[in-house]
């Protein structure tokens, strides 16, 4: 039950990720991006939010080519769990671990707000403590969260049920074009084909304490703890 949170230059949510993992009983340590391997016994690699390399070139582009990412790719290839949050999702997309790309929000604004999401499926290691189609409220904070992929990729991820979360309203209604950033099909997060890699723009790690707005994010980390315990 061990998680490694990768720290890139410009990451700023690594502490929040560690807190959320620990709140769910998962042992968590921070690993520098220049390392060539994950700590022995790592079950889950987490790429936290932030602005790695100042978003130079494209968000996540340079971090995706850092030494630790070969280890993360190897971990994923062996069926290991990988979670990329916000900038971490951008890094996963840039590294080829997830398809598509996150481009500038359609209205150009950096969005920083509470946001409802629909949990598309509750049978994955990341969502087993949620109910299918449950509406949850978490935080979003990004300028480049507009999910885009070519038509063929979209057909595949929709057809294979790889969409993890969609932006919705408080009633759970997903309305195309009404989301916060212009994402295709209101996609907020996607899985790899084996459901072991998840990338999402919202911040579940920031919603683990009633004191700061709610606990809807905690279940993701509890789901991971459960899946790691039963593995």
């Amino acid at each position: 039950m061990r998680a490694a949170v990768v720290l890139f230059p410009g990451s700023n949510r690594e502490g929040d990720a560690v807190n959320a993992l620990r709140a769910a009983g998962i042992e968590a340590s921070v690993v520098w991006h220049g390392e060539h391997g994950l700590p022995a016994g790592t079950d889950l690699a987490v790429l936290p939010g932030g602005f790695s390399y100042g978003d130079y070139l494209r968000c996540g582009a340079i971090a995706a080519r850092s030494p630790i990412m070969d280890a993360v790719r190897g971990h994923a290839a062996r069926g290991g769990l990988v979670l990329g949050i916000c900038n971490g999702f951008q890094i996963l997309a840039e590294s080829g671990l997830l398809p598509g790309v996150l481009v500038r929000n359609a209205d150009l604004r950096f969005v920083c707000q509470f946001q409802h999401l629909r949990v598309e499926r509750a049978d994955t290691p990341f969502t087993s403590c949620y109910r299918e189609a449950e509406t949850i409220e978490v935080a979003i904070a990004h300028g480049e969260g507009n999910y885009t992929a070519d038509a063929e990729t979209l057909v595949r991820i929709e057809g294979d049920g790889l969409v993890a979360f969609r932006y919705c309203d408080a009633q759970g209604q997903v309305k195309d074009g009404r989301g916060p950033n212009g994402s295709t099909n209101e996609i907020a997060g996607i899985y790899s084909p084996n459901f072991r890699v998840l990338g999402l723009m919202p911040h579940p790690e920031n919603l683990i304490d009633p004191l700061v707005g709610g606990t809807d994010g905690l279940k993701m980390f509890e789901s991971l703890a459960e899946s790691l315990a039963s593995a």
Partner: protein
Amino acid sequence: MKARITVTLKTGILDPQGKAIEGALRSLAIPGVESVRQGKVFDIELSDAAAASAEQTLKDACEKLLANTVVENYRIELL
């Protein structure tokens, strides 16, 4: 030797920055601007040793890092 790589968004990919610049040019009353798309330019100096295979080297650089070919095209010019 020197090379210039130009990376642009593919047709049909939303370019909000280009749109904003387009709007700003209109507000300056610059006449005749129909649309603006923003891109990136990379000026690269290659060692003499690399010059022989420059085209392939720069193509690799574009494919591996400089362009995200999901949404971007690139053009290589050897100067």
